[in-house]
């Protein structure tokens, strides 16, 4: 056999080998994005029969239905500045402050009530963090655990210095004369009064009313109105924030240097004094914004009122209007311009009126 023939055949075999290897490389590159992991089959294990649990003797199933003549009452001694957490499934809730270092819980036509002490004071060993439960842990077993209280009337008497935290599905909640309050409802109205150290109230369907209170304040409702009157800051850094999506916000005698009020489609009414050095923001997409302020108000005004309008009974100095670019805005000064009033509305009407 000729060496030339051998060389030629070897050449052909080599070329075929290289070509096939590159084809394999190309196909493996495209298949790498779709790797298929092949799991080896394993024989299925025979299904185990579930074991039926043994029912304990004297076992009674839990019941959550309210009974007409059921009244539950319980009390516990606590520290003066106790922190109280309550979960309410349904019912009208009333929290009152009193001058005893004791929590008294009363539930009418509903579940039983009990307490769980989460933390005690280091010095006096009195409870400083208490959770109010919908059952009595001392009397009822763990299988009947229902942490949220439900009933027609739920009443709590707490020390004046207490901080109350309530979460509820549907309830009308009233809190009076406690140090601090935080309320979150899925639905229902909130009434808060005489709370000096701060308020946080949030309901997704209902009204929020706050009076004679102080400290940092956050009032929030999605579909409902907000009313706040005679509220003031406790410390310099306290802020007042209120927000509703489609309700009205009415504020009277608000004494906060940082005030932010926002209503998406509702109107805003502010009656009161503008504090010197304060920053006030009023925003409403489509609603009216009405301020009734004293004649000697001293504030700088920055207003963007889009397709709406701006009126002021108090004369503005250094007035600059921009109404040529489609969306209107203006800047001006009332008096000495010591505070800042910031207005934003797309289609609303901004009105500044003189207080009588």
């Amino acid at each position, binding site marked *: 056999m000729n060496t030339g023939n051998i060389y030629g055949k070897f050449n052909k075999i080599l070329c075929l080998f290289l070509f096939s290897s590159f084809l394999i490389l*190309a196909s493996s590159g495209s298949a790498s994005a779709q790797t298929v992991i092949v799991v080896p089959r394993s024989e299925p294990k025979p299904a185990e029969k579930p074991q039926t649990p043994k029912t304990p003797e004297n076992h009674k199933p839990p019941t959550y239905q309210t009974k007409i003549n059921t009244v539950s009452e319980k009390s516990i001694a606590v520290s003066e500045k106790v922190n109280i957490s309550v979960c309410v499934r349904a019912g009208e809730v009333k929290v009152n402050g009193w001058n005893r270092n004791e929590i008294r819980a009363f539930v009418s036509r509903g579940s039983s009530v009990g307490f769980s002490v989460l933390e005690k004071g280091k010095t006096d060993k009195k409870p400083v963090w208490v959770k109010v439960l919908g059952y009595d842990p001392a009397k009822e077993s763990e299988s009947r655990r229902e942490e949220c209280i439900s009933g027609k009337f739920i009443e709590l008497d707490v020390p004046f210095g207490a901080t109350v935290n309530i979460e509820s599905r549907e309830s009308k909640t009233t809190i009076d004369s406690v140090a601090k309050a935080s309320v979150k409802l899925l639905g229902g109205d909130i009434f808060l009064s005489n709370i000096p150290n701060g308020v946080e109230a949030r309901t997704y369907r209902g009204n929020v009313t706050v009076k004679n209170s102080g400290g940092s304040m956050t009032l929030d409702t*999605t579909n409902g109105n907000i009313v706040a009157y005679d509220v003031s800051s406790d410390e310099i850094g306290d802020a007042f924030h209120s927000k509703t999506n489609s309700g009205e916000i009415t504020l009277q005698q608000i004494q906060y240097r940082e005030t932010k009020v926002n209503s998406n489609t509702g109107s805003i009414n502010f009656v009161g004094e503008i504090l010197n050095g304060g920053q006030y923001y009023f925003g409403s997409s489509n609603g009216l914004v009405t301020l009734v302020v004293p004649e000697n108000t001293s504030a700088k005004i920055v207003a963007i009122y889009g397709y709406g309008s701006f009126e002021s009974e108090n004369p503005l100095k250094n007035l600059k209007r921009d109404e040529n670019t489609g969306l209107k805005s203006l800047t001006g000064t009332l008096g000495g311009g010591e505070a800042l009033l910031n207005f934003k509305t797309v289609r609303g009407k901004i009105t500044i009126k003189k207080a009588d």
Partner: protein
Amino acid sequence: MTEKCFDEGTIQAFLDGELGLELVDRISHHIALCDSCALAVAEAEDQMEFAFSALDTEFNTLVPTERLWTKINLSIETEAKNKSIWHSLYALLTNPSSLAFASLVIVFGLFVGLYGLKNTADNTMLAKTAPKPKLENITAISNSPVKNPPSASTANDKISQPPSPVLMAKQQNNAEDFRARKVVYVETERSPIKPDSNYETDIVYATENLAAEESYIKTISTLEKTVNNRKDEVLNPSARFAFEKDLAVTDNTIENLKKEVRKNPKNEAARVLLRNSYQNKIDLLNSLAEKTELMASLN
């Protein structure tokens, strides 16, 4: 001896067979009669024998003759003429070096193709999440009267607008065209330029607006995904109705403000209100998300 003796060269030529027949006959007769010439011939033969034995390997190499070389070349030419195109192609493909080069090209092409497909998929996803108004904003801004950059007095200065990638590729491929296009660019740069243009400010405004709007849009899209999955479970019919109504009002406000911003990108009031409206929508969606969390915690 009657005849004169021959010289050494003639004797060597006699031994090499390079003389004519007559002279060979004469030398043969002379050698038979002349002892000195016979001795000289013997010595010359000894020398030749020694030389041939020493150079035997050199002389025995097979060196083709001129005729053989001519025959080989002729046959190669004939074969080359009679070769078909497929034969040539096959020869090219079977060439190891050309095959290696082709394989490199194939592998490179595969990588480029896969990378390009991946980029196309990413761009498609971005196009789906990013709303059209973002592109319209870009169009609006680019269509607005853009002034030339303030400093472009020399030919080597930067071009007012960067050339498109396609244009640049064409420029690189064709040197002559590149030079021609460069001349065109230089000529446009020589147009009069106002010193107090707001070109850079416009670009900064546009970039900031787009960045801010994009972050709002991203947040809203994330919240909407969460909310849309849960709103049927969380909201009763009346609450759902109120929610959808508020959402529709907010969306309508956003659309109107977007149009205003597109009309006049420099309108600060429009931008502020648009951001406000985005924030309102975020708050609305957030409230539903928080409601979901509260329901979960109460359960």
